[in-house]
């Protein structure tokens, strides 16, 4: 694919100029990260925005526990920098190592810690953004609470580049947890792994991350000590004083399933495991266009996953399932070509268990069509967004 129109603004003014030009020239516009993750088909006029130059940390406010930072900064890099200073930004996604903060937030990429640490909205306190109507706006600040008339920040998060580009963030930070441990357990099937995970959410152990993967998902941790089987991956973090009891409680829950567990206490080792997991998931995702995101009820997940794991083989020989069990939501990533009934079969199973799946193009709640079209028109009257570009 030829991409001949990559632009990398130096500051917010330049970003605004680029967007205004796109409006007057009727060009489409998208972030560079999409080239890898969404494999869009571009025409030569499409503007590809690369935020690499917007990568400065503007202010780390130690009193207020906030950081003000440009949106182009690499997500993982930001986290590492903050950790060195004793601060914690708990969102963590498969694209952390590859994508900018802006991309992660605009697409609300699912964080592994979602559930224990809430969603992006709780951490994004202020933004500066260039909207697709050409306006440069500045809202919020360092205030933890803000209900000053309609939550535009909330609307921009997850807007998938259809309203504008956030170029600057003020984020709420947390104190770095005293201690971290990761426990990985081998289960005989995905059903029992998920059952154990559910018990863990309800015992006051408060895992920071709680993932279940199917056997093929275990490959995300290839070349580590981990044996291949459905896995339960738990990250515990918090105060030293309670860590041992939390690990004990965890083991007590897992024991009846006869699932052997590997406990990691070394921070470097933990970091490597996550780097590997993230990186491999990213690579898988960048190779497919048939990803399915889904959510389900805690109580129905064990059965639903079992059936998905069993039935989908008919439509694709290998696929990875990753579930964030804290919130009962996950994704199915096919490894290779899928059959024509792949989506249909998934929907059928999801329906049976009242799960919800998001097929990639849907950007609409039923019944909200007109409202969403009007919303889009308010932000993007010239329809320059590459995504969500239905006729207004």
């Amino acid at each position, binding site marked *: 694919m030829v991409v001949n129109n990559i632009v990398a603004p130096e500051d917010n003014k330049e970003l605004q100029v680029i967007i205004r030009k796109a409006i007057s020239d009727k060009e489409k516009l998208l972030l560079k990260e999409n080239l890898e993750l969404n494999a869009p088909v571009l025409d030569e006029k499409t503007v590809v925005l690369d935020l690499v130059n917007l990568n400065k940390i503007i202010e780390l406010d130690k009193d207020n526990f906030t950081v003000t930072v440009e949106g182009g900064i690499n997500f993982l890099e930001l986290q590492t920098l903050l950790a060195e200073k004793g601060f914690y930004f708990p969102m963590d996604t498969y694209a952390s190592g590859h994508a900018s903060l802006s991309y992660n937030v605009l697409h*609300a990429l699912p964080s592994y810690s979602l559930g224990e640490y809430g969603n992006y909205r709780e951490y994004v306190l202020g933004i500066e953004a260039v*909207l697709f109507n050409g306006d440069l706006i500045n809202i919020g600040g360092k205030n933890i609470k803000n*209900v000053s008339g309609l939550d535009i920040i909330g*609307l921009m998060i997850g807007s998938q580049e259809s309203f504008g580009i956030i170029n600057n963030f003020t984020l709420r930070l947390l*104190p770095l947890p005293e201690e971290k441990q990761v426990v990985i357990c081998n289960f005989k099937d995905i059903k029992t792994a998920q059952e154990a995970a559910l018990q863990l959410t309800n015992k006051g152990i408060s895992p920071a991350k709680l993932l279940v993967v199917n056997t093929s998902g275990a490959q995300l941790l290839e070349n580590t000590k981990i044996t291949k089987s459905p896995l339960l991956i738990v990250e515990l973090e918090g*105060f030293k004083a309670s860590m041992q009891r939390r690990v004990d409680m965890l083991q007590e829950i897992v024991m009846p399933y006869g699932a052997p567990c590997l406990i990691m206490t070394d921070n470097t080792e933990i970091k490597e495991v996550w780097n590997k997991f993230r990186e491999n998931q990213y690579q898988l995702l960048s190779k497919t266009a048939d990803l399915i*995101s889904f959510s389900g009820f805690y109580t129905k997940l064990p059965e639903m996953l079992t059936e998905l794991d069993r039935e989908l083989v008919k439509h694709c020989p290998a696929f990875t399932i990753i579930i964030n069990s804290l919130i009962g939501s996950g994704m199915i990533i096919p490894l290779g070509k899928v059959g024509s009934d792949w989506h249909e079969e998934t929907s059928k199973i999801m329906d049976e268990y009242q799960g*919800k799946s998001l097929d990639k193009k849907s950007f609409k709640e039923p019944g909200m069509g007109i409202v969403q079209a009007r919303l889009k028109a*308010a932000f993007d009257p010239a329809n320059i967004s590459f995504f969500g570009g239905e006729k207004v």
Partner: protein
Amino acid sequence: MNSKQINYLKTIVDPKNICTTKEELLVYEYDATLLKGAPEVIVFPETTEQVSRILTYAFQENIPVTTRGAGTNLSGGTIPDQGGIAFVLTKMNKVLEIDFENRVVVVEPGTINQELQDMLTPHGYYYPPDPASMKACTIGGNVGECSGGPRCLKYGVTRDYILGMEMVLSTGEVVVIGSKQQVNPDPLDIVKFMVGSEGTLGVFTKLFLKIKKVSEAKKTMLCTFDSVKDASRTVANIVREGIVPTTLELMDNLLINCAEDFIGLGLDRTADALLLIEVDGLKEELDGQVEVIKKVCEKNNVKGFKIAQSAKEVDQLWTARRTVIGAVARKRPSYSMQDVTVPRNKLPDIVEEIVNISEKYNLPIGVLAHAGDGNLHPLVLFDERNKEEVEKVHEAEFLICKKALSLGGTLSGEHGIGLLKKPFLDQEFAPEVLNLKRKIMLAFDSKNILNPDKILEVGK
């Protein structure tokens, strides 16, 4: 509205749910602010279908509709200042579903926050948003304002606990957004955007709430200081030490005395400031945290440091905190409460300014704050019947808002803009932002009939 319109409404809901007597209109002209404005008719819908049919008709006839829960908001959000329908959802108050295993509750909007909590407590669960008014306010109103409460430093505000809803748009169309599951796979979060929309975007008819398991243990501390400065510095320092308490509440001397007058707990009436601090978690975690907090307090010249010993004592402290706002009326008949929020380390500055303003206008002002969030509730005391004094109150409040904004703060942390703070909004937002907000409001409510011109002037 004419009698034909009112008669038509009577074909949609039981006529006993349509009120037009002067007596009843009088009691729906107010909320918890001093503002007033009478509706032309009061309608109590009982089902989603009725809500939908009434809105369909109002849309067709261009009738303003002001949605109302318990009417305890502090921003004039339920004042039907343009007449029309006062749309009161207090009869839609059923808890429809409690699913502990999936941690979701489905309620009608008129459900009282406390009554829901009472149903959850025996099972070891709770719904975290806990506005001080929880005994009085409805979940619908909480969602309308994105209410917070003492617990939200650690556990977040209403927005973080709304999974989905059934809502009726201004046209009467019923939509379901979000779901009963813990997340919505769609990244665009219209559900969260509805939280804090102050009745301007749609009328909620069912709400899907996330509930949480009660923590294993908690500890409540009561610390007194000789200066508000010391207390606010303590607040900032505690978080720096790596501790996120569930609660960090501050009261100044005036409020300590009001609370004492009402509840009589034996608080130190001479203290200049009091911090109510609570930490929760697993039991082993707490002693260490309490120790650190105590050290921080000591470094900041704490006067008295006390750990509540019994559940009863904790309850009493909380009752004192929840009722102190009203208790100020024992000093002067009227009070007006602001809701400005500033970055945490700017607390001392804003408090200093409030003290100056209080002296300048010769008005007693008490300071109550969700200090951990930098969310202040300065309470200005006066007598509503004294017009001159009322003028002074307006000026003083304007200055407080201005100061908060100049410190990088915001007009409202949890009470919303409504009518009360509408005149100040252009101090916080640039014209482009206001314009955008206007367009968004019209995107949802093209005729501007839902709580018309609240938050900002929309026009037709």
